[in-house]
């Protein structure tokens, strides 16, 4: 690794910083037992259920954990508050850190179990993360495979000031623009929560239109396309027409592909808009207005100047939000966490202002 003992130049007392993607990891299913009703505790024990599928981040893959992020307690990276506080909030001198728990209750076909696991995860987040650390904000884990059950969970905890978004895995069985999910959006909007679509998921269908990939590398690199599908779906299926206050963050999906999707779908819309009359403006306008993207992974071209040009192609200074994607390994030294050569006004927006406005912090 590079030099982690020196702070990057952009960590300055006069530049607030908000990290929009920090993964707090549920160490094991047993961690949730105290938060589960007796019936479900027994169910998990008797069935020897090990917890939801965790294929999104193979334990030993280099991308999964930065060196030195495994806690002394030997739990998985991201499971220990002390270490996480030290390596994220304190290191970056962050004003806020947004937890993006990736506990995949959505992969459990038993929807009742999924719902109870989601509630347990959220109660654990309140007790172990939000209450001890006031700089943290969290994402509600919901059983999105059953939107009414997910809405019930949003109702239950949506007023807690620590939760600022509802998180959904980017891989889904039905794309997120579909009316199927309206109960989730209705509840989220009512509770002033954003929707955070994040890397991963295991809905039982392949992660590509052309079947299952052989390797993790392909699945990892290919996740960008699934984000693209969700972006297109949310706009084309009218989610922002039905919910004008809906805010969607795209988390850990890269962003350099976004301009190409805007251009393509704008062109499609010019030819096909009579098919989707509820899309009243250029699709890219909805994207700029309702969507934000976290900064890591940057999927950057080799030349720093070219990356700045790609950022310019978003045609918006509001869309990018700083993130480290802790504990995942996305950059080799802290200075690389931010594109090199950004103008100061845009730096400040990316570091904090965009997230502050979007999450209403």
């Amino acid at each position: 690794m590079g030099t982690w003992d020196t702070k990057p130049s952009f960590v300055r007392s006069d530049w607030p910083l908000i990290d929009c993607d920090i993964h707090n990891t549920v160490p094991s299913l047993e961690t949730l037992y105290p938060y589960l009703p007796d019936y479900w505790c027994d169910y998990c024990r008797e069935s020897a259920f090990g917890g939801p599928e965790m294929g999104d981040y193979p334990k030993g893959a280099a991308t999964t954990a930065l060196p030195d992020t495994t806690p002394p307690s030997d739990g998985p990276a991201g499971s220990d508050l002390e270490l996480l506080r030290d390596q994220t909030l304190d290191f970056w001198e962050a004003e806020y850190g947004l937890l993006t728990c990736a506990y995949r209750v959505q992969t459990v076909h038993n929807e009742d179990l999924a719902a109870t696991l989601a509630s347990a995860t959220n109660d654990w987040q309140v007790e172990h993360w939000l209450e001890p650390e006031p700089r943290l904000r969290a994402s509600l884990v919901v059983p999105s495979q059953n939107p009414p059950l997910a809405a019930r969970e949003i109702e239950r905890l949506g007023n807690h000031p620590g939760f600022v978004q509802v998180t959904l895995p980017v891989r889904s069985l039905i794309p997120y623009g579909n009316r199927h999910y309206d109960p989730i959006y209705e509840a989220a909007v009512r509770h002033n929560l954003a929707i955070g679509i994040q890397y991963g998921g295991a809905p039982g269908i392949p992660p590509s239109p052309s079947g299952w990939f052989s390797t993790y590398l392909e699945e990892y690199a290919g996740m960008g396309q699934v984000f693209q599908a969700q972006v297109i779906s949310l706009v084309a299926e009218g989610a922002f027409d039905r919910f004008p206050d809906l805010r969607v963050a795209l988390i850990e999906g890269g962003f350099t592909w976004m301009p190409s999707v805007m251009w393509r779908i704008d062109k499609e819309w010019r030819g096909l808009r009579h098919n989707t009359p509820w899309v009243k403006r250029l699709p890219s306008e909805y994207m700029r207005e309702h969507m934000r993207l976290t900064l890591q992974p940057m999927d950057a071209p080799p030349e720093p100047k070219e990356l700045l040009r790609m950022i310019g192609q978003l045609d918006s200074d509001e869309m990018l939000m700083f993130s480290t994607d802790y504990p995942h390994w996305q950059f080799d030294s802290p200075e690389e966490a931010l594109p090199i050569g950004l103008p100061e006004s845009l730096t400040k927006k990316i570091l904090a202002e965009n997230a502050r406005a979007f999450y209403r912090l």
Partner: protein
Amino acid sequence: MKRTREKVPVIDSDIHNNLPSGDALAPYLSDRWRKHHETIGGRGHSGGSYPRAMPNAARHDSWPPSGLPPGADLPFMQEQLLDAWDIEYGILNPLMGAGGQLNLEYGAALARALNDWQIEEWVKPEPRLRASVVVPYEDGELAAQEIDRRGGDSGFVQVLLIARTAEPLGRRKYWKMYEAAVRNDLPIGIHFGGSGGYPISGAGWPSYYIEDHGGMPQAFQAQVISLVCEGVFEHFPTLKFALIEGGFAWLPPLMWRLDQSWKKLREEVPDLKRLPSEYIREHFWLSSQPVEEPPKREYFDLLLEQLNAREKLMFATDYPHWDFDAPDRALPTNLAPDVRRRIMADNARELYRL
């Protein structure tokens, strides 16, 4: 002000010829498969119906006066496309679903019939046209047989696959087909479309045609990722692919993402010796239509540079489909003349050896 422009040759790398009727292939099928064709007919992965915006996805003016379907009437195609735009060569990509047949032997019979029909009824009567070898691509061995059967005919310039396959194209079940393509010295074209039996996005089935049509780059991205990461180009170093009707603005970001991911995860794919983007730059060509239209010219120029469009982009009209790109309008008018020339004709001329 009247614009004057140097006249450049045009090669159209994506033309869709069509069957005049369901019976048109009958003379090219054996008795056994003619009977099957008439009684059972095609059976593919069903459940992917997206009513299109217009009949046959065709330009309204492409319905020939003869009453035949768009793309089925050669004299009308000659007049409306080849003569009207003075096209030097046109590459035929017939989309009849042979490769997606669940009955693989029927798919192979259909492919044989379509290939013989292309030569007899299109390439022989019209020397400006070249054909693509249709193959039952879900069976590598049957596909290889068909490539060997027809690949030596100079009327064929590529093997034709469809983007949405049953498995990502880097997987080994397809490798016999690649061996045959290399043996016959043919590039492989992957064209828009298909139905591999899974939802058409990694996020599930969308609802509208705009998502089906506008989402197609996702299938192309999956294929590029798979072909590179499975080491296909280490095993077949001379194999070339043309990505047809998939757009192209998505490719540079994909190269960066793949390179970045590979740097961290390369232990998993020890067969890969070079950066993924190096394989991509060497082995992939792209057809232009549908040209992405960024709001600012400078974005488009940067994109062409990032793609090495001067060497790898090939003009296509997609005739007779509704999203037709016209030869005089598809590219910015003030593109450097040598770049225009290469995109409009020379890149295809080199890849397809015209």
